[in-house]
């Protein structure tokens, strides 16, 4: 019987998977845990299969799956979840970020009653720049989630399998797993984990990566605050922009009534443009409301808390 399934999605970073496995599995085995490792590979990481095959040949609990098409880290992880045999899932980035004993600490926290334990790299020993960008990211994250998380970037989480199955995972939001779990009312704990030496290098990402992070944040903010009420989001933006447009047009109207011509005033274009954009935003919000209205009858809208009293436990509606 396997207790713990460690999922390692392997995308483009080039880690030594054999070393990763030896380092982490030694600690897990040392703690007397029964575990398995699941490696989910992108198509172009096929040559890692040989490394992993040799590990498996030595009788280690390793399973390897390869995607037929490039999926990305989140999708690989999500695809690997149904393959897990353990009652607890540990997500591990292929690139070692925390030292191995931290895994045991996470697992123990979940055993002690947490639904999800996420590793927070501390003390951090990497460059000032790495820490600064992480600080900025999490500062932006807080208003979206209403709760302080210190290190979502670690990507190392231990989570109960039945809890994982109850969290809606889609798109690229898997990196926000602790946020989503906390939002669903699960008990989420941050656990300090010493940073791995391999994680200390300076990380400067491409502009595209930073843009994607920002979009992720915006998406998360919308998801958490406005999924059920899109009109409040788009309506606020739209009515603000429209109002600015109407003000511009009102100023022009007053000037026209005072006898100044407005046919050659680019201000007029600005005013009309603002009104048009505002109306578009409100109209989008209305479409959003229509979609929410019609899907409300099909969608799970709440989750009941577990209880020892024999009350029904489950979803709002399947």
């Amino acid at each position, binding site marked *: 019987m396997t207790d713990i399934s460690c999922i390692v999605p392997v995308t483009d970073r080039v880690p030594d998977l054999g070393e990763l496995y030896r380092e982490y599995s030694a600690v897990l085995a040392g703690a007397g845990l029964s575990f398995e490792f699941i490696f989910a590979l992108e198509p172009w990481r096929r040559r890692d299969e040989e490394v992993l095959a040799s590990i498996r040949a030595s009788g280690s609990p390793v399973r390897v799956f390869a995607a037929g098409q490039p999926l990305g880290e989140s999708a690989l992880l999500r695809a690997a979840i149904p393959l897990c045999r353990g009652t607890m899932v540990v997500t591990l980035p292929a690139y070692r970020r925390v030292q191995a004993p931290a895994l045991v600490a996470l697992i123990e926290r979940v055993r002690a009653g947490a639904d999800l334990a996420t590793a927070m790299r501390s003390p951090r020993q990497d460059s000032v720049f790495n820490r600064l960008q992480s600080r900025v990211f999490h500062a932006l994250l807080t208003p979206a989630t209403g709760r302080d998380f210190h290190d979502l970037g670690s990507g190392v989480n231990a989570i109960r399998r039945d809890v994982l199955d109850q969290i809606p995972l889609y798109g690229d939001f898997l990196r926000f797993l602790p946020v989503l779990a906390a939002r669903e009312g699960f008990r989420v704990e941050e656990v300090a984990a010493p940073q791995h030496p391999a994680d200390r290098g300076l990380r400067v990402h491409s502009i595209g990566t930073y843009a994607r992070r920002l979009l992720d944040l915006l998406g998360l903010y919308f998801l958490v605050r406005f999924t059920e009420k899109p*009109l409040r989001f788009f309506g606020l933006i739209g009515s603000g922009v429209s109002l600015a447009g109407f003000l511009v047009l009102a100023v022009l109207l007053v000037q026209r009534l005072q006898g100044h011509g407005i*046919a050659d005033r*680019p201000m007029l274009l600005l005013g009309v443009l603002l009104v048009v954009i505002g109306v578009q935003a409100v109209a989008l919000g209305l479409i959003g409301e*229509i*979609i929410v209205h019609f899907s409300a009858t099909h969608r799970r809208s709440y989750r009941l*808390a577990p209880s020892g009293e024999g009350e029904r436990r489950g979803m709002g509606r399947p």
Partner: protein
Amino acid sequence: MPVHISVVVPVYNEEENVPVLVDAVRDALGHDLSWELLLVDDGSRDGSRDAIRAIAREDARVRLVPLARNYGQSTAMQAGFDQASGDVIVSMDGDLQNDPRDIPQLVATLDSGFDLVAGYRLRRQDKLVSRKIPSWIANRIIRRVTGVNIRDNGCSLKAYRRELFDRMRLYSDMHRFIPAMAASLAGARITEIPVRHHARLHGQSKYGISRVLKVLADLLTIAMIRSFRDRPLVMFGLGAAAAFGLGLTFVAATTVAVLSFREVKANALVFPGAAVLWFGLSCYLLMLGLIGEAVLSGHTEEGKSGVLLRETPR
């Protein structure tokens, strides 16, 4: 004895009120087993959940519906409705401002041939400026927009026929508009009767004046869904027509400007530019309307009508 009445009460941080509330409901509904009281704990941070659990352990008619986190009143009410087993559902606030002694009268009125009976607070015990006046204005607007003639939409004490909730689900903050939704989505017969109202004994009010904007947005949604639920293209088409009309106005202005100024100056591009923007908006709204139709067709189930019909007695 089958359960006839299910009383659903969303509870959020009402630890002190819970025992009083349960006693009041017991006194009002008698000591038989024809009713049940569902207390939906909406992720309270105080001892509400334990208080309810303790009572539920001793009285089988009281049930705890524990939500995993705070979802808000609409979702909490829906969770209670989902678990209710009576054929009549009564909703009520957890703060004791409603009086359970009004429930039998509500249910009797419902049984005389209605799908929804709303209470209206006769002598409201709330602050004038922050609660009563905004509420008075809101009710006037809601009545006008929704077309449902209910005096007091803010009063939670209402009785419903169970079938109503097979046809609609509460989400977001729609609990304020249950009568309007019931009328437009299920064609419900609605009436109202006066109910008692008490000043708050314990705990804090969870409402603030800041919700005005939210209510306005919700009201716009309700009005839209009421009028255009079955034909979103019409709504967006009307908007598109208005934008198109504005575009034509600017085309006319361009013509006038060109004719009267003779030599066309580069800056005369302003009017045609504005016309193009309006035409663009018009196209955009039409396309959104088509998306709306696509959404509608994707969610329409065959052979299923939401409307409640009742055979009239001969």
